[in-house]
């Protein structure tokens, strides 16, 4: 629960966007605040990239308003305060890392030094290398360096850690957290729910162009009140499935898997009916379960 009143840096208000007959966004409201990381989640085709494109000024909304620092995202003065890392950067192979950084830094009024960019993004010793000769992970780090080199007040990260190993991913997470602590507003789209769980102050779930849920990670998880019980028992799945609080029960690789709304009563009855019951586990639904449930409900 962190409803904050920090300054709004970017906003979509009642935004609709269509491509021909296909509706990409339908009445979407979204607010990015200083010092907060907002994770935008949703299945493929939910409208995430369209939402990012509107806030970056790459697309024009058909209805509603998109603003960046209170102005149109098309305005150069708004974009000079934002940084961006897109899913596919398409950076030319023959460009050198240092050259890319120098050009991108020149777009901003008060950029970080080359050394600072390199150390934040973990590019030490790579500045003289050609982009095309870097590993996939190193290329992602270059793209991150380009995103932060202008000391942006709002940062758009579209799937930033795709293709990174665990160590690079955690390095990037640290760098993102530092930006947020310094007061930067960050919008993150990701397929990795653990990434949203680790970083997000707020989560917005999009499905088929509509916001189906928003709130803190905890609030989103609470959308799914269910618990998952696992145990080894001689009770049959069919028998347990007939109990009133049980939504679903099945036998998976020798273990009884039970999905329930409230665990306590079911656990008590399980222990009462099967004295030899073992390896009992009760789990609360994670963001992943909540996400699947939310996007399924709306479908």
């Amino acid at each position, binding site marked *: 629960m962190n409803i904050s009143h920090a300054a709004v840096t970017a906003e979509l208000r009642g935004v609709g966007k269509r491509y021909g007959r296909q509706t990409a966004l339908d009445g979407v409201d979204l607010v990015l605040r200083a010092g907060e990381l907002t994770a935008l989640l949703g299945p493929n085709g939910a409208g995430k990239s369209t939402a990012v494109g509107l806030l970056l000024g790459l697309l024009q909304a058909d209805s509603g308003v998109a603003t960046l620092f209170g102005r149109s995202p098309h305005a150069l003065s708004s974009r000079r*305060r934002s940084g*961006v890392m897109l899913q596919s*950067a398409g*950076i030319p192979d023959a460009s050198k890392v240092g*050259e890319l950084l120098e050009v991108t830094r020149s*777009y901003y009024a008060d950029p970080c030094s080359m050394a600072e960019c390199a150390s934040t993004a973990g590019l030490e010793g790579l500045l003289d290398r050609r982009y095309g000769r870097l590993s996939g992970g190193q290329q992602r780090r270059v793209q991150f360096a380009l995103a932060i080199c*202008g*000391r942006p007040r709002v940062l758009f990260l579209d799937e930033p850690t795709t293709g990174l190993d665990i160590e690079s991913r955690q390095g990037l997470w640290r760098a993102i957290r530092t930006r947020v602590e310094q007061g930067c507003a960050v919008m993150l789209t990701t397929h990795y729910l653990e990434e949203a769980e680790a970083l997000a102050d707020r989560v917005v779930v999009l499905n088929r162009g509509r916001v189906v849920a928003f709130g803190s990670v905890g609030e989103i998880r609470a959308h799914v009140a269910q618990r998952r019980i696992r145990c080894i028992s001689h009770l049959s799945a069919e028998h347990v499935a007939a109990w009133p609080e049980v939504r679903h029960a099945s036998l998976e690789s020798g273990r009884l898997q039970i999905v329930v709304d409230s665990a306590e009563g079911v656990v008590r009855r399980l222990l009462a009916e099967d004295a030899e019951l073992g390896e009992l586990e009760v789990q609360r639904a994670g963001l992943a379960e909540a996400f699947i449930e939310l996007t399924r409900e709306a479908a």
Partner: protein
Amino acid sequence: MSTGKFPTARLLRCYALEGKYEFLRLLRTHSFVLPSLLFPAMFYLLFGVVLGARRGGGELQAYLLATYGIFGVMGVALFGFGVTIAIERERGFLTLKRALPMPPGALLFAKLAMAMIFATIISLILATLAATLAGVLLDPAQWLLLFAVNVLGVVPFAAIGLCIGTLVSGQAAPAIVNLVYLPMSFLSGLWMPLSVLPDAIGRFAPVWPSYHLGRISLAVLGQEDSGGVPGHVAVLLATTLGCFLLARRQLANAEQVGPG
């Protein structure tokens, strides 16, 4: 903290850096540099120096100096715009550049600067070959004018390249550019004088923009009536404007298709 004000000197630095690194990037790209710089020089050596030596007078050597200069300029402009734009558009680099606070027109400026630097290098190589091996004698003013025609001649072919780059895929672009480049330069009398080609080719030659640029260079050498120059310039300006507007419309339409 960053404010709305951005000093002009800083803005100019963006354009200069874009141009410098676009040039260096293509200088490292062998598939661009080798044909762009070697072909005009090789053809000039073959047709202007080796085969031209059998004909006296130096008129052919001067003619081919002018036309292979145009041939070279067309190459860097068509490939430097057509192929790079097609690839950058397809791979999403143009989208990234548009999302970044790149000053307006910086990308086009960078590519134009790059092509003009290559046009300068080609002009110098051909001038050296012509003055030393082919024995071409020109006034200093003629050398300078020929150079100026080459460098400014980049513009209409950059516009044609831009147009191709917005229409075709990155993979198809080199083939399409060659399909435009090679026949057009041959049919407009850049490889060998129109006078030695069949009449029909000469009659159709004014259809090609490269013919008009070639005629301007030949007028500098006194091999063509200079009274026709304003007409040739007008055709080239119209080509530039038409292609530029078409490319702009293409890019605007591409935005509407957008991501998923």
